């Protein structure tokens, strides 16, 4: 794999993870537990879709096969999607929604913070914008984890269950593969060791404040999203997300 191919794949990973999490959050539009939460979830989703577009646009320029950002997003099938397995997991109860958000936000925050200094100027610019949003998202989701964990018996049980349920997808966030290594070597991606340390450091710190326990770092982990091997959920997400542009490929006004 050339460095150029690795970069294209890496950009699609960033774009797809933002996009799929955004789509998941949008499922809560009209049925969030409270109107303030709905506003917040939709705004987080909006930030993510904006960032996804920035990554897709850059990826489309590099891939340069006539597909634009929309085509990359709406006309690729599940096995070509490169998102983290974490973000395609169902919303569950609100504890699951916020635990998933928190695990992702910690990864997203440290990744954007590192990409802000990428040698690739375009990536650095997109990340410098995204890191402000990611900071805000992390601030919010970590507060929710603490409020639920250190809240009532019921809320504690639920967020602990959510941590236990989603722990098996956390390994993928911090386990580098050849593309992650190539990006680090190229002066673009984060140092995989550092990312792992930062991620566990913050997750354990917040979990301790929330009186929650986290799983083992060497627990068995589901992986594969970054190379297109997904859980059963992604196909259903794409079916809904891609229906309209596939059914009306030439539509220019929605």
């Amino acid at each position: 794999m050339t460095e150029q191919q690795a970069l294209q794949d890496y950009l699609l990973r960033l774009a797809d993870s933002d996009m799929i999490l955004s789509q998941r959050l949008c499922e809560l539009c009209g049925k969030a537990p409270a109107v303030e939460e709905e506003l917040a979830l939709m705004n987080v989703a909006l930030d993510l879709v904006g960032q996804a577009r920035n990554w897709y646009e850059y990826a489309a320029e590099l891939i340069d096969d006539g597909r634009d950002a929309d085509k990359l997003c709406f006309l690729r099938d599940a096995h070509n999607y490169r998102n983290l397995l974490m973000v395609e997991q169902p919303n569950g109860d609100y504890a699951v929604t916020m635990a998933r958000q928190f695990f992702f936000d910690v990864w997203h925050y440290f990744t954007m913070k590192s990409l802000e200094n990428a040698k690739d100027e375009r990536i650095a610019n997109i990340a410098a914008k995204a890191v402000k949003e990611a900071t805000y998202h992390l601030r919010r989701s970590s507060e929710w984890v603490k409020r639920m964990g250190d809240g009532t018996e019921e809320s504690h049980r639920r967020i602990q269950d959510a941590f236990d349920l989603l722990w098996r997808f956390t390994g993928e966030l911090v386990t580098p593969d050849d593309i992650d290594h190539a990006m680090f070597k190229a002066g673009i991606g984060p140092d995989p060791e550092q990312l792992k340390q930062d991620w566990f450091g913050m997750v354990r710190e917040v979990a301790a404040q929330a009186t929650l326990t986290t799983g083992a770092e060497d627990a068995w982990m589901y992986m594969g999203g970054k190379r297109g091997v997904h859980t059963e959920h992604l196909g259903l997400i794409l079916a809904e997300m891609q229906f309209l542009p596939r059914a009306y490929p030439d539509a220019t006004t929605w």
Partner: protein
Amino acid sequence: MTEREPSSVDVLIASDRVPANAHPELLTEDAIWELLDKVLDPEVPAVSVVELGIVRSISWDGKHLSVDVTPTYSGCPATELIEELIAEALRAAGIRDPHINRVLTPAWTTDWITDEGREKLRVFGIAPPQGSASKMSLLGADEVVACPLCGSEHTERISEFGSTACKALYRCRDCLEPFDYFKCI
């Protein structure tokens, strides 16, 4: 044949045309900044795009104009509309094919909102951003936000996000009114 009434479509097309009597070559850079200062943010129509700090720079040689515009948030849905409103205002002043560049760096910060802009936000009922974005901490305490209606600092946050991505939702504990806070980024 009777002359038909001009429809809204004609008006729309006319607004895209450069007026015949315009002399854009006489416009100074300052005059262009003044023009841009009349373009209001479509989601917060109390402040102009200049006051919000999203017009970063202009380059004008009497014939070609290029304007650098930066989005507030990556996913701000008003980005395209704002660019279109700016282009429209410039065409109406006789400038042909103004070039609007979308720039991401340096990333927009609320520190760029002018003092006038902040005061206009407050009068409009939106609490302006407090303090400096560079000093914001990741997991730190909330800043004190004064109620834009009664001035009380006895307020509480209801949600990290408000009616748009750039705002948070607060409530005043004294006058009991909910209000938007233009959050600091």
